[in-house]
């Protein structure tokens, strides 16, 4: 069973997802936590930016990188910081985000629903394990992180469903890009 603390943080991530929903973005949200405190949050902004890589995780990471550099932290210090951070996100990070999180070397990830089409933390690839041995003693391409799914998954799915039922044709394809198994959407896309 998830700890009360975990649920509290996931609740905050859900709130971020709701903000995304309010502006017709695919509802995914996240918070990043260091020493029991939320230090950054993010929500999906793919439609607004016309940039399909602007997932909630990327938004939150950018906030942190900006903050830490403003405080004069060096790269190695920032790497150290990330290794003490946990991410709470409403949907399993996609392959891109999971890879990004292992490049940053985040400590731990908690997610809501799984991402059956694009998930990079077990569903399609397992980039959080990234135990491919580096060749010729080279630097490892990514760092492993602990990953726990299924936290408040039904709430996360409900947001996706609400989003889809709004039926905004402009964003239908974006739904797909987040890997929702909504048959009607798939039919639209395939047709």
């Amino acid at each position, binding site marked *: 069973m998830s700890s009360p603390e975990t649920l509290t943080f996931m609740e905050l991530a859900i709130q971020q997802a709701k903000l995304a929903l309010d502006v017709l973005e695919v509802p995914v949200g996240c918070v990043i936590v260091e020493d029991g405190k939320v230090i950054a949050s993010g929500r999906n902004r793919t439609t607004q*930016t016309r940039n399909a890589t602007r997932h909630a995780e990327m938004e939150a990471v950018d906030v942190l990188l900006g903050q830490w550099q403003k405080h004069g932290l060096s790269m190695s210090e920032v790497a150290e910081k990330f290794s003490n951070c946990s991410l709470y996100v409403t949907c399993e990070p996609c392959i891109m985000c999971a890879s990004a999180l292992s*490049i940053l070397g985040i400590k731990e990830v908690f997610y809501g629903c799984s991402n059956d089409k*694009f998930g990079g933390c077990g569903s399609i690839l397992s980039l959080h394990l990234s135990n491919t041995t580096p060749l010729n003693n080279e630097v490892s391409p990514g760092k492993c992180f602990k990953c726990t799914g299924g936290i408040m998954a039904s709430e996360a799915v409900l947001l996706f469903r609400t989003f889809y039922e709004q039926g905004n044709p402009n964003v239908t394809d974006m739904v797909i890009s987040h890997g929702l198994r909504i048959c009607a959407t798939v039919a639209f896309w395939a047709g």
Partner: protein
Amino acid sequence: MMDQCLVVHIPDKQPHDLHHQPTESVFASAIDPKHANQIVRRLNQIAPLEDLRHVKRIQKKVLEGGQIELLVILCLAHEGNNQLDNMPPLLQELISSHQLSPFITKVCKYAATSKEEWQEQCKFWPTSYHPRTYNIDGITGFSEEDSQSVLKFMQSAVEMATSDGMVVNAAVIVDPSAKQIISSACDQIFSWNTCKDNNCYRKPELSSSHPISSSRCNPHEPLHSNSSSNQLKQSYTDVACLYPRQWTEQQSHSQSSYYWHPLRHAAIVAIESSAARDRYLFSSEGNSEDRYLELDSDNSSWTSSPAKRQKTVCANGEDDDRLNAHSQTSDQPLARPYLCTGYDIYLVWEPCAMCAMALVHQRIRRIFYAFPNPNAGALGSVHRLQGEKSLNHHYAVFRVLLPEEALHKCHT
């Protein structure tokens, strides 16, 4: 070099998968040939094989003595659920009325993509094979003209990748129908906006991804005045997709570096820049055509006046309010492409998983890379995203065979 240009398609699957094709367990049964039509028709109604359309429902076996046996697939035998009792009632009815004796057998899970695969599949249970009817240009080969064009764009990527006297990755997004560069960028891990070199004076903004403004200036290493091949023949540790964790090794903090970012790999920055262009070109209905023409004329000279083009494409970084006001009317003069649909990207190195997936999200049509990435490559070396069936978009991947010396003779 032009004559030796070779563009090789990197297939969705590794060839050795041939003998290890994923299979699925199914219930099958021998049937009386006299009832074959009736049974198959009924099965298609009550137990269609939705995800196994490539698998033939029925197979004919010639037994010893020339006797013919017909076998039919009844339904999937799910793992941990392989009891006959769990079959749908209608199916159980059919089984008992025809006195069938179901058994479990294996069929291939995915449709064959080559004749060789198909032949292997049929050793389990016959499947149908349809040579791919959709074709992304180039899979079946390039014309002389097309490969010249591919080489030209790849060379411009290589030029960017080596333009600082050090070697990084570079990305060039191209609209192949117009042979027009949409955006381009180098890795921007160590310095995004500024550096001590006065060439890099630009203020921080989304659009700083032009070859010149984006050229990476590592404050920790002085720019070399000459690019001897000795200096360039380092181990490419600055190429972000090759060594994504290299950034953590940087101890010192440079005051002169305005902003650095471990995730600003070339492909990510190029995508960002193409999105900025999209927002700019389609930010308002009224004058989008004029802007497009202006852009177009600049593009004819993109190599000679990058600054001008930069200004044109990206003068308007974010204008989301206007974007939102943009309505979808039918008399729009210029069709707004959906993200990078129809576009190609040229990368000097095979991208890592982050970049390769970003290119799926942004709907790139074809990826060309020159050098494989054995450490972290996601298009054949470590992973093979183009073969992940679950993804909603699939690009075609090509390797442009360049000699490694190409990295060393651009800027001498």
